């Protein structure tokens, strides 16, 4: 059961990260200091953080029980 929740969390987390709208700085170029954050991006950020926390906790629990 825990495995399935972990799997769903992982896939949702991957999805949440990929649909994030990146700013155009990419790798190595200077960061853009002044930027506007849209509310959709904020909600997505909150959801991503929740999924990260859940994913970390579930991985630890699965690791302790040694079941994958």
């Amino acid at each position, binding site marked *: 059961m825990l495995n399935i929740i972990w799997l769903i969390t992982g896939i949702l987390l991957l999805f949440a990260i990929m649909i994030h709208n990146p700013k155009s700085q990419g*790798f*190595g170029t200077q960061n853009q200091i002044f930027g506007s954050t849209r509310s959709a991006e904020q909600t997505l950020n909150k959801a991503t953080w929740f999924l990260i926390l859940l994913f970390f906790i579930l991985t630890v629990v699965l690791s302790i029980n040694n079941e994958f």
Partner: protein
Amino acid sequence: MNTSIKSIKKQDLKDRIVFTLFLIVMSRLGTFLPIPGVDHDAFYQSIISNPLVNFLNVFSGGGFASIGVFALGIVPYINASIIVQLATNSIPSLEKLQKEEGELGRQKIVQLTRYVALVWALIQSIGVSFWVRPYVFNWDLNFVFAMSLTLTIGSMLIMWFSEQITEKGIGNGPSLLIFINIISGLPKLLQSQIQSTRLNIQALDIFVLVFIFSVMIIGIIFIQEGIKRIPIISARQLGKGQMDNKTSYLPLKLNQSGVMPIIFASAVLVLPAYLAQLVSNEQLRTVLHLFDGTSNNKLLYLLFYFTLILFFSYFYTSLILNPNDVSKNLKKMESSIYGVRPGKATTEYLQKTLNRLTFLGALFLAFIAIVPNIIETLTNLSVFKGLGGTSLLIIVGVQVDTSKQIQTYLISKNYETIVR
């Protein structure tokens, strides 16, 4: 009023620093979060002397040796960046996206890089889950799927953390994460070096090491900070008859691309080591080892490294600064370079100057990167084995970059308050 603005400014900077530190802690935490089902002790003992794993560990902060959730680290994102940026120069539609479609085009390029990173992470993680097969308790297709998914998620999370640091924190996210991973390996490296040299270390050796390190650090800061000032003159100055007033200038950095050529060159250097693991032909393996630095004859490896740094310096500079754009902007501002006609002549002059600067900067960068290897060969001092020129360049380079960004941030905030 002034005090309250200052306190808001300080608070904002503090928030950014705290956020950056928080993400760094998270990235370290994930490195030590073990993947279930693997006999970690047996795996660690078997790969401790593997040069490829040691190299990948530099970028993943030890995560590769411990097979943590973040074992792949930022490597897939670096490789994806190299692939996409090389493709941008060779595929016309991508070139158009990068150069002509402004912010939106660049955003599409970044999104494409993320997708390539996802595919790369997936392929690499499937490879790793087959590679660890002898150390897995119950190896089956379920395990391959679960492990590949975990490693891919870990790598994508690191990518997202790095984006968040660049966007909402301080400094450049990817470089900062690599910097932290290198720093995290230092205590262990020092401990092992002290243990191995305790019996025969001499005062002269320590003096030589401290001297070389200091010279290298000064050299790195020198190239990071070096700029050529090209005097420019505006129509307004000409109108006022201030021909001799050369206070306005165009600053061209000696090393436009920072530590990126080093990071990219290091990522490419992993390839021969990786291929050497895959091939069974002994002769081919010996040839590949000549390029990965593990062979006794380091000449080919150093030459390869040197060429890669030169190539990526030119390549990255061409992406960051376009002489044609600078020339057009100067024309728009009714300014021109002292003694050079606006338009085509300015573009050509800038291109020539930039080429010479990049060559000089890259030469210096490559020289500093290979100096430890030369010193090591000449003096037989093994302290450089772990912390090579690459790591030192990244550490100092990222520190200089980050402190400069903090300064730029504070100055830009000051301008904001002046405008208000």
